[in-house]
């Protein structure tokens, strides 16, 4: 072969190599199936350009099996019946994977100015009830079975006015029924008009309004709740709550409550027992970041991200800040390890909202996913699919892949989710198509909700666990489940209420790597006491564990 031909071949090889790069980068982990499954939902805020703050803060969403048929249905929160808005909508998943709008028949078409949704079996009858946070009165809907709900807000003693955001069911007094924690944002002055430093109309910021205190409601049984915010010690703090997770972060066996506040120190309410809480975020290192600065915390994840047997905290923040990772030190204290674990650089340009920890490829490590979207206009419109107005606020989602506790930005592999900029807000996770791998439902301010199914090409084995307790087989929110397989332990919590304004599947899905079977499952039930041990079995299926059926 002569030199010219060699050169030609080298050039062609180089070209081919260049061509390989995008192919590798586009190895999609998720596929947007929104249109094919018929999930037709758009967040309707009416006319754009009015800069009404609530429209850019929502909406949330939920993945829940409301009808108990074993597959996940989708609930999408809307901005009410305003000029072009509409009520919330419930979509039932059919056997063929398509979604059908059953809002009218279900009675779940709440017409408040919706923000978020929390799910939990508040009456302990074995099905999931729904709490909706609104700008205005919140609502509690009791699941009556047969796919029907009824508004029980008044009878339940709930429905405080104001602006509520994320909510979580939690058995804070460990008496066997689910209480309710509701974050509240600001005292909104709807007449306020704000502008950016160049005088352009812009959404107001959180500091333009006074903060308000969050709410804790005690479940008194019979779907009756009492506001115990004051005696619990919660009511004295006036901040701007957006996200919430409930978990035993102090390690004393009682559930604590962590609140992500916008533009203020975050709160860690340490459960003292007897219905009392003390706020100890600053002392425990989770109020402010490593630089001593408060951040605009929005979405929350609480999970064992470094696989050391302790729950860590990850939260999403404003552009110019980083998403922040607080790793548990083991004595009920935490340290900001964002930069050391590779999460600082990739998140500085994003304004993150909904977030989740999920094992995308089933290798046993929890990856992190976050949806993004500005709250103040960015400088460039992104994507032809967006209107000029929303284009300035839209950003693509991000995936941070976990490799032994270190994270790498692998957003390129997200598929459309990582390329298609949206004004991302809500994010819920769950195995929608029943293939053992966790899928993602996302919502966008002023945009369409999107369902992205997990299509990871290389997958480990999996196990899905549902934990129930009580006579009615209530889903045991707050239970800690540890699976022993292939010489490793995999720890997850039953925690539908992290992320932002959203509720994920109450079942926990484990990726177990190469294990074809598991040796045992250990459950620490939310009421405390000795953990229960359940026998092992093959992977690749769902198991339902009932409290009291295991060995203590």
């Amino acid at each position, binding site marked *: 072969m002569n030199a010219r031909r060699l050169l030609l071949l080298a050039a062609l090889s180089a070209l081919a190599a260049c061509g390989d790069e995008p192919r590798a980068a586009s190895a999609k982990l998720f596929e947007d199936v929104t249109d094919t499954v018929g999930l037709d939902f758009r967040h309707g805020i009416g006319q754009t350009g009015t800069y009404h703050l609530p429209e850019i803060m929502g909406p949330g969403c939920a993945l829940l099996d409301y009808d108990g048929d074993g597959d996940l249905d989708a609930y999408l929160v809307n901005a009410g019946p305003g000029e072009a808005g509409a009520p919330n909508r419930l979509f039932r998943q059919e056997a063929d994977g398509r979604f059908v709008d059953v809002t009218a028949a279900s009675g779940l078409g709440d017409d408040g100015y919706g923000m978020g949704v929390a799910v939990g079996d508040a009456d302990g009858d074995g099905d999931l009830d729904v709490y909706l946070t609104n700008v205005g009165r919140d609502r509690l809907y009791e699941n009556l079975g047969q796919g029907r709900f009824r508004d029980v807000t008044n009878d339940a003693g709930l429905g405080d006015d104001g602006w509520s955001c994320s909510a979580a069911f939690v058995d804070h007094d460990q008496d066997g029924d689910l209480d309710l924690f509701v974050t509240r944002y600001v*005292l909104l*002055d709807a*007449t306020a*008009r704000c*502008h*950016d*430093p*160049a*005088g*352009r*109309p812009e959404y107001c910021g959180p500091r333009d309004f*006074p903060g308000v205190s969050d709410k804790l409601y005690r479940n008194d049984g019979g779907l009756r709740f009492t506001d115990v915010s004051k005696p619990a010690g919660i009511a004295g703090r006036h901040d701007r709550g957006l996200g919430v997770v409930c978990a035993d972060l102090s390690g004393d066996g009682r559930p604590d409550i962590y609140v992500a506040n916008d533009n203020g*120190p975050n709160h860690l309410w340490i459960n003292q027992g007897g219905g009392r809480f003390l706020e100890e975020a*600053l*002392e*425990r*290192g989770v*109020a*402010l970041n*490593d*630089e*001593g*600065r*408060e951040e605009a915390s929005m979405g929350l994840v609480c999970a064992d991200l470094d696989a050391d047997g302790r729950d860590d905290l990850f939260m999403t923040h404003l*552009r*110019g800040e980083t998403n922040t990772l607080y790793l548990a030190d083991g004595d009920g*204290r935490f340290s900001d390890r964002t*930069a*050391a674990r590779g999460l*600082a*650089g990739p998140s*500085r*340009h994003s304004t993150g909202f909904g977030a989740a920890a999920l094992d995308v490829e089933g290798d046993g490590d929890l990856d992190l996913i976050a949806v993004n979207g500005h709250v103040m206009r960015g*400088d460039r419109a992104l994507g032809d699919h967006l209107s000029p107005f929303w284009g300035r606020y839209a950003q693509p989602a991000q995936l941070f892949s976990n490799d032994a506790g270190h994270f790498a930005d692998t957003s390129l592999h997200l598929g459309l989710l990582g390329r298609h900029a949206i004004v991302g807000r809500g994010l819920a996770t769950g195995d929608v198509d029943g293939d053992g791998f966790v899928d993602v439902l996302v919502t966008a301010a002023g945009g369409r909700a999107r369902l992205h199914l997990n299509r990871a090409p290389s997958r480990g084995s999996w196990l899905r666990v549902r934990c129930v307790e009580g006579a009615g087989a209530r889903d045991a929110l707050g239970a800690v489940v540890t699976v022993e397989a292939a010489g490793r332990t995999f720890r997850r919590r039953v925690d539908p209420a992290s992320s932002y304004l959203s509720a994920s599947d109450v079942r926990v899905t484990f990726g177990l790597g190469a294990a074809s079977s598991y040796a045992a499952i250990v459950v620490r039930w939310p009421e405390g006491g000795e953990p229960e041990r359940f026998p092992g079995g093959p992977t690749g299926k769902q198991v339902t564990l009932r409290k009291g059926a295991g060995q203590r």
Partner: protein
Amino acid sequence: MSRRTIIMIGLLGVVLLLGLLAAWSWVPEAPPPIPPPDVADAEPLVATTVKAAHEEVVAEPRSAAAWSRYALILDAHEMLIAAADAYRGAARFDRGNAAWPYYEALCRPDATAAEHVTLLERALRLAPTSVPVKLHLAQAHLRAGNEDRASTLWTEVLDQQPQHPHARFGLGRIAARRDDLPSAIGHATAAVEALPGFREAWAFLTVVSARHGDATGAARARKRAERLTGATSIDDPERAHRLEAIGVSRNHHARRGRAHLLAGRNAEAMRSLRQAQAIRDGNDIRTELALALARSQKIGAAIAMLEKIVKRTPAFVPARRTLGGILLQTDRRADGVTHLLSVVRDDPSDRGVRIPLAQALLGAGRIADALETLAPFRDLDLPHPAGLELLAWTLASYPEEAHRDPTAALSFAKALVATRGRDPRALDVLGAALAANLRFDDAIRALDEALANPGLLGAPRAAVRQRLALYRSRLPFLQPPVR
């Protein structure tokens, strides 16, 4: 071909190459792309100013002055991405100026730590003694994980300014990362001593004290951190002045108006505030204007303006606060008290409003309400001089014995002296509290010390003399009863 010919050809090649290089180096560098002015919906004056600055760069794309002016105008109006690009342009044609890479770094809050390090190291090479550049660079290095370089930079700052709070704070953070908690606490303590409003350092002191097992120290530091709001920026007055001077937005005019108001320049304040109002009217500007009117003795006009705002937008707290304060100086004191009480209810953290409110309540004989209003000042971990002074006076000298508390009065008076120093006014308060506790000799000593201060003149001096006479007669000072 002979060897000589080959050498000649080689030399010719080298000469040709050098020539080409020389020619290349003389060819003017192409100017970078000029960031377009995105001024849709901006205030007209901002849009005009930005466009004009942009046109200057278009007309003279190699002019450092045009680039830097455009960059500063964009920066002043927080069009940061374009400003950063423009600073890069300025740096291209003014390579010796540290400001441009430094300012570019500050305009890229979402850049990575490594990108910040590159820009700021370049700036530091050009301005090796710049404290702000060193502080920002040290911060960037710490973010990038370069603890040693960050430590060196902060230590250098301490060599230049031995108590610099940001340098102390930074070194404390490094010590904490290395589990040297005593050193971390020492640096944090030095930082808050140098800058008591340094919220981040108080928060850090809380964390490291708690980690070190000092629950009391942690609780005390936490209280201080919680009383403070906002971030403590690295001070760079030169940059702030440059941006403020070039800004033309409503915000700039409003800020200038507030600065004039604070300095007592009412006419200038009115002028700046009217300029801001002409750009866009709003409750904020109207409230400031009303204050300027009141200070120019146009009390009626100020009250009318504020009452209109309060009626239309009751949720706008600053108007109620200002209106209440002005009404207290008129014969409508009761209305003033009502407004200020509503402010305290809506914003319990507003300590400034509590002093005039408590004084008005005392004037109206509402001692219980006054003491409740002053309650937040009882926390001696968070000393507030004006609050301590009023508390000590009231509890030492209130005419009705049932409301006096000499012991508490003395503790507040001592805290006042510790906070404000032994100035005549603080000593006068201390004297009253000592006399209320029947410690007349100590009270006399305190007032003698006050009178020894040559700055104490006129009516205040006469009042201190009268009280001194009382104490010499073994009588405490009591305020006249409220009628």
